[in-house]
């Protein structure tokens, strides 16, 4: 096999580097060597999650729509094998294997201590060789139904999806990743294969591995196990989504200790570096105005309007959604809402605390560096950033460039006319 030359990414600040190889099979391979660490963590991921429920390739012709929850169902089914299950294969190596499905990604992972070679071979092999039958699809229905019921019993998760459902009219981000007990009834082996053959194409995937590894060994295993495939020109379809919200208010009932609220703001979607930069700026802006060091937070906590579970979040992706969420527990959610709204009316450039902004930049820098203490985070971070079309160390660069003015500008996204307020209470 021809020797591949990597693209090298290095940060002098955190003293780490990683390598990106464009493997001839079509797969991109990310490797971060972490000297001194014992373990190795790998993710073999595809750009396929719950939002990719309508798609086409050169093979399918027109767009096809599949049942909700099918990406997650497929993740479960990939652990089947004709002779023995995937977990049984891993059991012989001592590695810990797992997988997850999110809105835009399905990833298969392992963590190994003494030896990563055999676990890596298993990972590459089983993800490329599905064994899905009518019988094993049927068997999984009960298991996934219980997983759905388990997550439905979480009021925090229920609130999150209620929030997304209120913000989005059509975008599939509002659909629970695992689907519903009803929607998974329509999932069949042929449909799973259709999704597999569409999204589990090496051109749509990435291998990210970090820890006690060396490039040569990883690439040799890739050479042996990766099967070159043709690029099928995959396209996902996302329905037209207006900037208005679907429902400005909602209240749902669950057995909760303290009511939980969520105020979400719908923002225009972004992609690539613009998405990354705006998300970071927005996150800093939220911390300046609503974070635990802000005047508003201090007052709201002192007055008992919120408690310390209050948090802010930028929930965004290149798959067409960008939202800002302020949430937490409150005995009187309406009072929390009114307090946030009152604060929003007073926000202007003069009220933006530049000193706090500088502190947050320094703090953010420290947090970034400390991520590289944890093998699993390194592998996940490389994978996540690659799938978002950006580099691992770009955060550090952006942080050094962001100005108070630029960060303040993102407060314009906190538009109450594009917001939705949701509450869970008894």
């Amino acid at each position: 096999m021809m020797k591949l030359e990597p693209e090298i990414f290095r940060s002098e600040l955190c003293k780490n580097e990683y390598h990106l190889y464009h493997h001839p099979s079509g797969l991109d391979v990310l490797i971060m060597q972490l000297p001194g660490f014992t373990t190795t963590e790998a993710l073999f991921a595809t750009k396929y999650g719950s939002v990719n429920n309508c798609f086409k390739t050169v093979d399918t012709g027109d767009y096809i729509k599949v049942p909700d929850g099918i990406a997650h169902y497929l993740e479960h089914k990939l652990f089947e094998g004709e002779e023995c299950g995937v977990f049984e294969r891993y059991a012989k190596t001592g590695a810990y294997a797992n997988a997850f499905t999110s809105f835009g990604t399905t990833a298969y992972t392992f963590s190994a201590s003494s030896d990563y070679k055999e676990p890596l071979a298993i990972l590459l092999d089983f993800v490329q060789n599905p064994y899905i039958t009518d019988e094993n699809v049927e068997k999984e229905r009960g298991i996934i139904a219980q997983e759905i019921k388990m997550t439905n019993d979480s009021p925090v998760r229920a609130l999150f999806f209620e929030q997304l459902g209120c913000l989005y009219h059509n975008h599939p981000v509002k659909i629970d990743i695992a689907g519903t007990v009803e929607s998974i009834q329509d999932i069949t082996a042929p449909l799973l294969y259709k999704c597999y053959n569409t999204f589990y194409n090496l051109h749509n995937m990435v291998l990210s591995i970090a820890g006690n590894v060396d490039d040569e060994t990883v690439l040799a295993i890739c050479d042996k196990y990766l099967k070159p495939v043709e690029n099928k020109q995959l396209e996902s379809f996302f329905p037209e989504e207006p900037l208005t919200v679907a429902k400005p208010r909602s209240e749902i009932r669950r057995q909760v200790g303290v009511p939980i609220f969520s105020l979400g703001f719908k923002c225009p979607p972004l992609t690539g570096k613009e998405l990354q930069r705006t998300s970071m700026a927005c996150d800093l802006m939220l911390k300046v105005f609503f974070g635990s060091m802000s005047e508003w937070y201090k007052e709201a906590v002192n007055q008992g309007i919120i408690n310390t579970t209050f948090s802010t979040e930028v929930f965004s992706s290149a798959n067409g959604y960008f939202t800002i969420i302020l949430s937490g527990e409150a005995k009187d959610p309406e009072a929390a809402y009114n307090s946030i709204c009152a604060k929003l009316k007073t926000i202007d450039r003069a009220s933006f605390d530049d000193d706090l902004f500088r502190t947050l930049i320094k703090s953010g820098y420290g947090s970034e560096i400390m991520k590289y203490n944890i093998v699993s985070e390194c592998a996940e971070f490389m994978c996540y950033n690659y799938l978002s079309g950006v580099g691992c160390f770009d955060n550090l660069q952006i942080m050094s460039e962001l100005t108070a003015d630029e960060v303040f500008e993102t407060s314009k996204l906190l538009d109450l006319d594009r917001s939705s307020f949701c509450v869970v209470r008894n």
Partner: protein
Amino acid sequence: MSVEITFRKKYPNGINLTKIYDSKFKSFGIVIKLIVPNDKTKVPLYTLALDILATSSRKYPEMEQLSKELSNLYSASIGSGASKISEYFSLSLTLNCICDEYTIDNEQVSEKATELFLDCLLDPNLENGVFANKYFRLCRDDLIDDTDAIINNKRRYAGILANKRIYKGENYSLSAFDYRDVLKNASPEQVTEAYYELLKKAYIDIFVTGGNNDDKITDIIISRLSELERAPFGEPEYDSFSPLKTEVCRDSETIEANQSQLIMAYKTDNYNEYASKLFNAMLGALPTSKLFMNVREKMSLCYYCDAMLSEFKGTLIINSGLDSNNISLAQEAITEQLEAIQNGDFTDEEMDNAKLYLSEAYLSNYDSKYDICTWYSFQFSHGTFDTPEEKGRKIKAVTREMLIEEAKHYKLDTVFVLKGENGGNDDEA
């Protein structure tokens, strides 16, 4: 391994300090564990005191001042924690801080962060000699809200209700719900008194862990703590096996939820650490375990059916989330799988794979500065000094006969069901 225990020193005043240095980490941590008997009337006050300490200090009397100072130290953080260990309670205050060589222009932050952390513990924000009312109220209300919010997590909630039955009459059965009233009626004076008592009487175990090898850090800690007037409880004796009930306790409660929770507890009177760990792993702690392969994969009854060992109590607990109408079926299936191991119905390969998994998992402790701390903390509490490799060798030495013998000693003690009713999701617009 690059990790090394630089030293562990026992000081005569019931304070131990262990330094675990590993150059690969870009940060370091200081964990101060204060261990006390699990007394229902005292523990909630101690817990509240620790939470208050993590909010402020005399030098930084406002929470946001402290937060800002920590943020300026490159996202250093101070946190408090509380957990049961057998019949004791471990309260901890933890500092996490970047190593100086990773700051911009090598700014020196380690010593500053250490002093600031110790100020929180030893020089708190007091008003007229008692904890400032503002943070007393804030932390108390947070603790009460946290307790009330336990019900949001059905699995955790069921675990607490089950523990009430499993460990009936033992302090280990106490939960946040038992501490709620004490907290509600507490005064700043009582909590301040509890704070001083904690510093005086707790058994103190300190860990300095991670990428900082500067002796100044440990010197500062020892110097500051030597100021304390101490009259500590004796060294904790953690092993306190829970007695098997003469008659199996079978009980249930109902909750508004889609799913029911089944919890089955088994107890042993003849605990062998390595054989028990292997038994637990083969029964229900691995994705190739008996419970996973049968109750989940073959019978499709649940998403999870896990076994967990409560080591100091000699108790093995199985829990599963499932439909109410499958509870009896699941109980039978769980019993059948447990009996299979007791009867030797497993292959050598199953046993060897479980041994390999456990010994490999032990090694992963080296890659987290806090996990390796927990590892050695656990070793010390057992009077041992085993490395992850040594522990792995001991697991591998367990024979088939030892495993079967160990499994046979586990007897059913409690079956608890938290029955989900009415779905709990009658949403309205």
